């Protein structure tokens, strides 16, 4: 897969389908691979659109060391041939998804920054 030039510098990103686990509501959004993120982050508007229900509250440390809290939600995620059920995610005000290590650690990811390409496998 190619890096997306919608980011500067280009970033590994792909379309991810989000589904409410208990209804047929779904949404497809661009997701950036983020190996620094402990947990996957959804845009806030996706929570309302999918009518997800909060399940917990966790504390988050941001890049500048500031701590804040966020509600968590369980959602089904799928991209290419990969499907993940009941994934706990948080939300924030942003336009795309950050695909965190909670998902990336289930896959073998090869980033070729030189060629601006990446591959995902589940060996």
């Amino acid at each position, binding site marked *: 897969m190619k890096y997306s030039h919608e980011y500067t510098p280009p970033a590994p990103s792909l379309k991810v389908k989000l589904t409410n*686990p208990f209804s047929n509501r779904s949404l497809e959004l661009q997701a950036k691979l983020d190996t620094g993120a402990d947990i996957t982050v959804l845009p806030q508007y996706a929570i309302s659109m999918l009518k997800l229900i909060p*399940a917990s*509250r966790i*504390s988050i440390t*941001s890049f500048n060391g500031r701590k804040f809290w966020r509600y968590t939600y*369980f959602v089904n995620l799928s991209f290419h041939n990969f499907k993940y059920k009941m994934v706990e995610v948080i939300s924030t*005000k942003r336009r795309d998804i950050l695909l965190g290590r909670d998902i990336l650690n289930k896959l073998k990811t090869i980033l070729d920054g030189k060629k601006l390409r990446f591959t995902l496998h589940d060996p």
Partner: protein
Amino acid sequence: MVKTTIEVDDDLWKRFSLLVLRERGERKKNQVIVELLKNYIEQRGLPTDPQQLEYIMRIEDEREAFLKIRDKLIKDPKYSGKYIAIFQGAIIGCDEDKGRLAETVYKKYGYVPIYIDKVASTERHMEIPSPELTTP
């Protein structure tokens, strides 16, 4: 609508008024204050959607019930280190896998606000170091 009165430092108010006048024009201070309040709430993860707000209030009630019994649960090997689900103030499930627990309790009790957390002495903590993440 709620009407409220606040005390603000004279100098702070003068500078705020000047900025609003310069950027928005006359009689726009109330509008800017409402925007600031909305942004403050949104940045802290409280959605403006009334349905989401209702869910969050119910989750907070369940969380309070969890915090009341947490110390007792930590000492109980049946629960310690595992995820538990709280609904209407009572424990309705326990599992080592949070996703499996969520699926089980939602299937049994319906897709309603059920609090799920780990039985541990500290709250769950995550790092999101991406610089573009909106933070308070």
